[in-house]
């Protein structure tokens, strides 16, 4: 009996990279895609607002106060004669920019703090984590309110940058904790030892090997932070210490419209629904991202 040479190719299943796989899975998640679509839609409206409505968010017209929806004013006007629809879509700019730009501050502070804490360990880690624990005990909304009040009196006073800062300075804590936790758990894992065995050292280990794996939950957390930031801004404006009027904000619109809730409920409904839909969209997207990036669900 002669053994025949092996000429056939052993079949292999198609291979996916971690990010490619994640994108495929995300695309398959209908809710996440709907959420993403709404976010994009709203962003486009916000960016092209001047092309969509002839009115500005601050033009007051005392002859057209508190009108109902009409051909000229699609959603009517408020008690200062401002066009509600215009305020609604310019308000989207406020909400979206707060949601997204706050995260830059969060990442700028949280990522390095968490990474240093996790990698350095020892006293630095202890000190930083004690600090984080204290901040954690502070009810975050209240701290944001305090910070907001402080900033209001300063140079920025009432501008949107003040809100970015107020929210960002409170929200970084969670990310720092998360990043630290990720780095700690990865530090002890086998592939770090493997990297060390191959000669990697110090910073190289952190950047090349640990961060890409730690990134998954961080991305998800940021996506969930966005609706929280949006909500915080709306809450601040509702209480009256958010962006200073006439800057548009859905929260301010809710506050303004509140006294008229029985007479003209539509003034409240639109900003409230807009807020709800935007937050829902980000939550769906966040859920989708979390499932897509979960290594346990990888094929």
């Amino acid at each position, binding site marked *: 009996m002669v053994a025949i040479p092996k000429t056939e190719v052993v079949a292999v299943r198609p291979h996916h990279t971690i990010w490619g796989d994640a994108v495929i899975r995300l695309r398959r998640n209908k*809710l996440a895609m709907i959420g993403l679509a709404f976010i994009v839609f709203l962003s486009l409206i916000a960016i092209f607002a001047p092309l969509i409505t002839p009115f500005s968010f601050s033009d007051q017209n005392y002859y057209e106060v508190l009108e109902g929806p009409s051909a000229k004013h699609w959603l009517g006007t408020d008690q200062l004669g401002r066009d509600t629809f215009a305020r609604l879509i310019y308000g989207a700019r406020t909400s979206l920019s707060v949601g997204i730009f706050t995260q830059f501050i969060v990442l700028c502070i949280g990522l390095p703090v968490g990474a240093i804490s996790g990698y350095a360990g020892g006293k630095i880690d202890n000190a930083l984590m004690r600090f984080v*624990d*204290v901040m954690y*005990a*502070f*009810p*975050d*909304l*209240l*701290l944001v*309110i*305090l*910070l907001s*009040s*402080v900033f*209001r*009196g*300063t140079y920025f006073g009432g501008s949107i940058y003040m809100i970015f800062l107020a929210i960002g300075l409170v929200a970084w804590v969670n990310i720092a904790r998360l990043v630290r936790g990720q780095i700690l758990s990865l530090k002890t894992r086998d592939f770090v030892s493997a990297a060390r065995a191959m000669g990697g050292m110090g910073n190289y280990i952190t950047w090349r090997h640990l961060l890409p794996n730690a990134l998954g939950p961080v991305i998800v957390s940021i996506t969930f932070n966005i*609706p929280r930031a949006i*909500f915080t801004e*709306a*809450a601040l404006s*509702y*209480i*009256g*210490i958010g962006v200073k009027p006439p800057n548009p904000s859905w929260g301010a619109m*809710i506050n303004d419209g509140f006294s008229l*809730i*029985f007479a003209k*409920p539509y003034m*409240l*409904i639109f900003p*409230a*629904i807009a*807020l*709800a839909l935007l*937050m*829902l969209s*980000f*939550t*769906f997207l966040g*859920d989708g991202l979390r499932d897509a990036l979960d290594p346990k669900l990888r094929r």
Partner: protein
Amino acid sequence: MFRFIVRRILWLLLVLFVVLLITFILMHLVPGGPWDREKALSPRVIELLNRRYGLDQPLWEQFANYLWGILHGDLGISYSYSDRNVTDILLRGLPKTATLGILAFILAQGIGIPFGMAAALKQNSAIDYVSVMFATIFASIPGFVLGILLMILFSVTLHWLPTSGWGSVQQLIMPVFCLAALPAAQSARITRASTLDVMRQDYIRTARSKGLMENVVRIRHIFRNSLIPVVTVAGPELANLVTGSFIIENLFAIPGIGRLFVNGIAARDYSLIMGAILFYAFTIAILNLVVDILYAAIDPRIRYD
């Protein structure tokens, strides 16, 4: 266990101290003071008022006095509620805030946990999809937005429920529901996720291989383990409940501590602000302590540290 509790209480006191310190500093960074009025008072009057209330003392002295006062249960005098004791004011608001919070908590866990478990045990069934849908929606919509929408529906359109106030059952329904919605949804999601995770574990397979009845497997094996993460997140959930209550109070005009806080900020009423923050921070810290103890009681693995 005892040492554990003592250590945590000491930690709690330290945290409260830092919180008060930060609040005190921030408050004094806010421009203006408790005497700001529409029509400015004359500087001489302001100076006299400051002296009377000790606001002209150096800041660290004011802070030290304040801390000393706390130990005696004295939280100072309110600057906006004409001479009334902050402690009294807060105590008046406390029952409303507490009732709101407790009812919301019970409602939230009472709905969230069972639905979460049912959804996991009957995965991909109708109850699973519906629960997940509702949980996702209510987890994303903040209480106050929900409050507005509900108000418009039930008060303005249907005239079934009042929009504000405190005292009757109808006035409680919407605020409690709005406050409970978010934690209920979160509890449901966590319970579902953790139950699913536990169901996949090897020891559940071992339990089944012993021939145990399915409901025994569920209660003794699955349920006891899946509740652990739920308890762990109860801490942050309670914190959310506390801060959430403050917005809901404002929305539904409930005379609780949240309203007092907002009014205090607007009026730069230092002692009221400090008092309210102290209350919130203290409540959150105590609740977290209770959660930690509960967690140790449920999970024997961390007991023996």
